[in-house]
């Protein structure tokens, strides 16, 4: 009996702790350390900046946002653990998903099972939002990126014969490669050879040698910056001068740090460009530089937009009053469901990465840009709209 009483006392204590109603608990997980650390750190910085701005302006409907972030160490199992913790221990109202597709999928499955709305800022793989009706994204999807690069190659660069070098273990890379191949064929081009590598490889000379023998005009390398940097370096060493094309996974300062001059002149599709004339984007770029002493990477911009998008949904969501005497978990679930409904209704949201609307598949519809690597900077080349 005594045990039972003390248990009751403890649970009451815990209960009263979580009952703090003047704060909105917003969870997030990111790869702050590990193989894709720069993605995670930029994601975190972008989100933090947005949250600080919102709180400085008085929060959402008078309530401040409390941001709870966990590092998943670029690891899938760790992701599972931290997302569970956000939902069951911290009881967040919604979750900001990860920069990468693979780990957004893992976190998304947990969020969907628990009916917690999750908005990922930059996971572009199609499967991510197919997990269920609680999973959203604030960016375009891989088929679009694959299409953009196929279009760019045939129309802007006027090239026809491509090789694909894909990271076989990576959902994002495989998705982009498949669509690129399909769209290139449709545009009258040809994929001469399609070769694989694996995340963590450091030598790509044999793949590149095989590609070299095929006389292609461009190589599509939709991997992450780590491997792409080494691929670019080794391609130059083998005397290969055709352009490398890729997706937003290239976007990291490490790309140039590791590859040096070898990566210059290559193209990739991205979510936004710092050269945009939109004052909103300009302010963001300026403020970010002032705050973190480095240029705002695309992951930061997307995470920044995603937080504002989420804030918009939370603002519009139905809240319950203190008089409502129902169980807290029921009220929390109602609030989560309402946020979900509001996310689905987002239309013509104006962010720093452009205008976006949620479509029926919970994917954001927005334009992409193609940029060229020039040292640590990316030069804007062209913009491709979804229609």
């Amino acid at each position, binding site marked *: 009996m005594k045990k039972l009483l003390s248990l009751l006392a403890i649970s009451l204590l815990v209960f009263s702790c979580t009952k703090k109603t003047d704060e909105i608990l917003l969870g997030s997980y990111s790869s702050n*350390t*590990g*193989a894709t*650390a*720069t993605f995670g750190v930029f994601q975190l910085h972008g989100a933090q900046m947005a949250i600080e701005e919102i709180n400085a302006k008085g929060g959402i409907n008078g309530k401040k946002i409390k941001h709870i972030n966990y590092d998943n*160490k*670029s690891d899938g199992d760790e992701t599972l653990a931290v997302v569970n913790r956000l939902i069951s221990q911290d009881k967040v109202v919604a979750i900001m998903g990860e920069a990468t597709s693979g780990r957004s999928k893992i976190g998304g499955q947990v969020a969907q099972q628990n009916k917690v709305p999750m908005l990922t800022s930059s996971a572009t793989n199609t499967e991510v939002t197919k997990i269920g009706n609680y999973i959203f994204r604030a960016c375009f999807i891989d088929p679009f990126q694959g299409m953009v690069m196929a279009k760019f190659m045939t129309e802007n660069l006027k090239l026809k014969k491509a090789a694909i070098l894909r990271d*076989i273990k990576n959902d994002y890379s495989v998705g982009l490669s498949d669509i690129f191949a399909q769209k290139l064929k449709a545009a009258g081009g040809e994929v001469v050879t399609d*070769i*694989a*590598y*694996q995340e*963590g*490889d*450091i*030598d790509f*000379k*044999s*793949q590149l*040698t*095989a590609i*070299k*023998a095929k006389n292609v005009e461009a190589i599509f390398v939709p991997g992450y910056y*780590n491997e792409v*940097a*080494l691929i670019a*370096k080794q391609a130059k*060493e*083998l*005397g290969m001068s055709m352009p490398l094309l890729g997706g937003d996974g290239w976007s990291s300062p*490490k790309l140039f*740090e*590791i590859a*040096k001059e070898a990566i210059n002149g290559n193209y990739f599709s991205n979510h936004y460009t710092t050269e945009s004339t939109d004052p909103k984007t300009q302010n963001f770029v300026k403020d970010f530089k002032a705050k973190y002493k480095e240029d705002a990477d695309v992951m930061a911009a997307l995470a920044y937009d995603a937080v504002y998008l989420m804030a918009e949904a939370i603002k519009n969501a139905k809240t319950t009053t203190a008089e409502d005497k129902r169980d807290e978990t029921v009220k929390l679930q109602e609030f989560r469901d309402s946020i979900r409904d509001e996310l689905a209704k987002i239309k013509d949201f104006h962010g720093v990465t452009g205008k976006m609307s949620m479509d029926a598949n919970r994917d954001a519809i927005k334009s992409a840009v193609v940029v060229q690597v020039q040292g640590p900077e990316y030069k804007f080349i062209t913009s491709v709209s979804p229609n």
Partner: protein
Amino acid sequence: MQEFLQHTLNGLSFGSIYALVALGYTMVYGILTMINFAHSEIYMMGAFAAFYLARFAGLDTPSPLNFTLGILAGALLAAIIGFFVEMLAYRPLRSSPKMNVLITAIGVSILFQFGGQIIFGADPKSFPTLIEDRVLFTLADISIRLVDMLIYFVSFVSLGILSFIIFKTQTGRAMRAVSTRPDMTPLMGINNNKIISTTFIIGSALAGVAAVLVSIKYPKIDPMMGVKIGTSSFVAAVFGGIGSLHGAVIGGFLLGLGEYYLIGYGASTYKDALSFLILIGVLLYKPTGLFGTTRKEKI
């Protein structure tokens, strides 16, 4: 034909790295009949030693001197770590069952991998260019590059020094003696612990050299960098016959070539599967490897 030559060249270059690392596995096995799973992490520490030396001592500009210093720093620190790992983790277990030492080795390996992620940070670092790479000459349309030549050169010099130590010096003779009859050597006035330490120091120094060479060619280092190369090199050592020195070298070269031909001619997806297929094949059909000898268990 040109493509084949290029694959051969790439394969031999990486094969010599495998050979250097495989020697560490095989030497330790020869003398202690244990697999030192922490060897791949000693390799990783060698790369980080050179990285921090180059960075903080300002030796990160391309010059032959910095290249040499980088290699020596990697070798020296790897040797020191190898020495301490043996002294602190393996020596106290000298008389316990083999399985205990094996599990300890796996523990040490994990300690370094994750300790490294805490201390160095898990994000990859860009290794400084210690020597400017350039095309030395062109042979049948294949450019022979300076860094590749240096990899061959440094590998062969290291192998030369190793075989000199093992076959021409008193210490080497003692090492061979300990590896055949560790119970008899103390009667001949050999200090077994000292000889085992020496073996770890030499094996680790070779791994350190290999790590710096790899980091110069592929300038991206992170605390998990040893895992893949470690596994492949271990397979190379088993393939060549674990415990056999020239077996490790030949195993390394053959595995390097095999991997590169495999990727070059179509089956790029199966690159890592190759090492494990070889491992399974060797264990099933020729457990002693190419040059290994069966050791009679004496009562």
